[in-house]
């Protein structure tokens, strides 16, 4: 089973193409990060997956058929789009109960999911008074109601405190470990590095990469060796292939061993000799630099 399959998906708003010819798969058992700068089309894509927005072209299937064709979709797919998009006058319990009833989910599930997200104590309170963190938990409770095989989260850690972030990360990994497909969007690469094992990267509505996290780093940018020395100019002359910066030398063509041997032979003291691993952040910046909607 392919949990989510987008095929040449496009969405046009007036003259702008928000999503263009986007194809990707989301597989069960993984946390798939959906990454792109703000305005890249992530939320639009998620809304199309969930049948809220009609694609202008192409299609997207959830476990083989369009979302709108599932009779009780919440038993197949759970999603958190906007945690604050709830009627503030309702209690958490009634909010979840209405959702559960619509999909013939037993009312007992409401108490269960409230327990899972740690909101049992405030189940009877009006959700208008909830903090963003509590709303986020409530949104996740709603997503979990139907015990779905597929979960979508749109920027779930936005505005959360560190405890909340850690909790969501752990939950997503646990859900994936149970064999569910977890598709989570973010504009923060560092966030994805912590959670996801696969990536769908988009920019300006187009696919930039669909790959595993480790492949993504390897493919897009190389590591380098950073050398610091009180006699940096001499080191630069010796190494020849380095790129001289104000306080350090950056070398890509030689290993730390080679550089160390070279400078030792000339008796030049070193302050630092480090292999700098390519970061996911750097890889992401490099790949998306052409596709930022707004550049500062």
């Amino acid at each position: 089973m392919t949990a989510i399959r987008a095929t040449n998906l496009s969405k046009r708003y007036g003259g702008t193409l928000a999503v263009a010819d986007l194809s990707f798969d989301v597989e069960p058992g993984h946390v798939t990060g959906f990454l792109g700068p703000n305005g890249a089309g992530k939320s639009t894509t998620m809304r199309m997956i969930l049948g809220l927005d009609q694609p202008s072209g192409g299609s997207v299937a959830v476990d083989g058929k369009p979302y709108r064709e599932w009779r009780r979709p919440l038993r197949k797919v759970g999603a958190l789009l906007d945690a604050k998009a709830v009627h503030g006058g309702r209690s958490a319990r009634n909010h979840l109960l209405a959702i559960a009833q619509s999909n013939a989910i037993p009312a007992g599930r409401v108490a269960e999911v409230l327990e899972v997200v740690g909101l049992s104590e405030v189940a009877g309170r009006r959700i208008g008074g909830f903090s963003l963190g509590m709303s986020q938990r409530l949104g996740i409770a709603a997503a979990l109601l139907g015990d779905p095989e597929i979960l979508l989260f749109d920027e779930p850690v936005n505005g959360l405190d560190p405890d909340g972030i850690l909790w969501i990360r752990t939950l997503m990994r646990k859900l994936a470990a149970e064999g569910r497909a977890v598709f989570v969007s973010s504009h923060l690469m560092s966030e994805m590095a912590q959670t996801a094992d696969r990536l769908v990267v988009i920019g300006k509505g187009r696919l930039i990469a669909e790959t595993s996290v480790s492949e993504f780093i390897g493919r897009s940018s190389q590591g380098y060796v950073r050398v610091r020395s009180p006699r940096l100019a001499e080191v630069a002359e010796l190494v020849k292939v380095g790129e001289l910066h104000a306080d350090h030398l950056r070398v890509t063509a030689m290993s730390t061993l080679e550089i160390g041997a070279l400078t030792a032979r000339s008796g030049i003291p070193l302050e630092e000799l480090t292999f700098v691993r390519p970061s996911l952040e750097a890889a992401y910046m490099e790949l998306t630099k052409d596709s930022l909607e707004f550049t500062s």
Partner: protein
Amino acid sequence: MTHILRSEWTKIRSVRSTVWTLAATAVLMLGLSALLSASVKSQADGPIPGGEAIATSLMGSMFASLSMAALGVLVISSEYRTGSIRTSLMAVPTRMRLLIGKIVVFTIVSLVVCAVAAAGSIGVGLAISQPPSVDLGQLVWSTMGCSAYLTACGLFGLGLGTLIRHTPGALVSAIALMLVLPPLTYQLPGEWGKAVNAYFTTNAGQLIVTGRANDFLGPVSGFGVYLAWVAVAMVAGAVLLQRRDA
């Protein structure tokens, strides 16, 4: 479908706006019945005929129509305002089923509450105006007619809410179509103007409450015409709901 109805019932009963609008409806109906019946009684020379006493008791429906329309609007526009319409459509992606669920639940709630409010208003009114005799058939007919009329007003609001998706916009449209424009159509000239006036929204719809006829329509046919207005708003809303992105 029963699952969707259950869900919509949970939604409608769990927000304060439902309680407020229904309470406003009851207060308007009962309060105006008491007020107007007392006024009629004090000005009358002799005993008040039963039919007139009942009609006076239900005069509050003119304003209660707005509180019911407000509830109808809010049933859907509050979901657009908060964004929870997306949650609803994720749960029920067949949009017509969602809309039908809302229509059915609203209709049942409204028919019951408005019938009780109408019966109460008649009771209060008759207690004050003390007519010598009352036709039981007319009493039942007026209660049901009033309840049906107010429910249609609410469905008008629900249709406009679905169409406009914006609470203030839908409320203003409802007030204009139900309360402001109907009397203005009296100013229209000629035979054609008279027909427009007779067929215009609540001018036609109210006939079932008063039990009277105008130059063109009787109580039942007038209500039928009103339902057609409601249906136009509802169908337009449904078509857009089906086609628009949420």
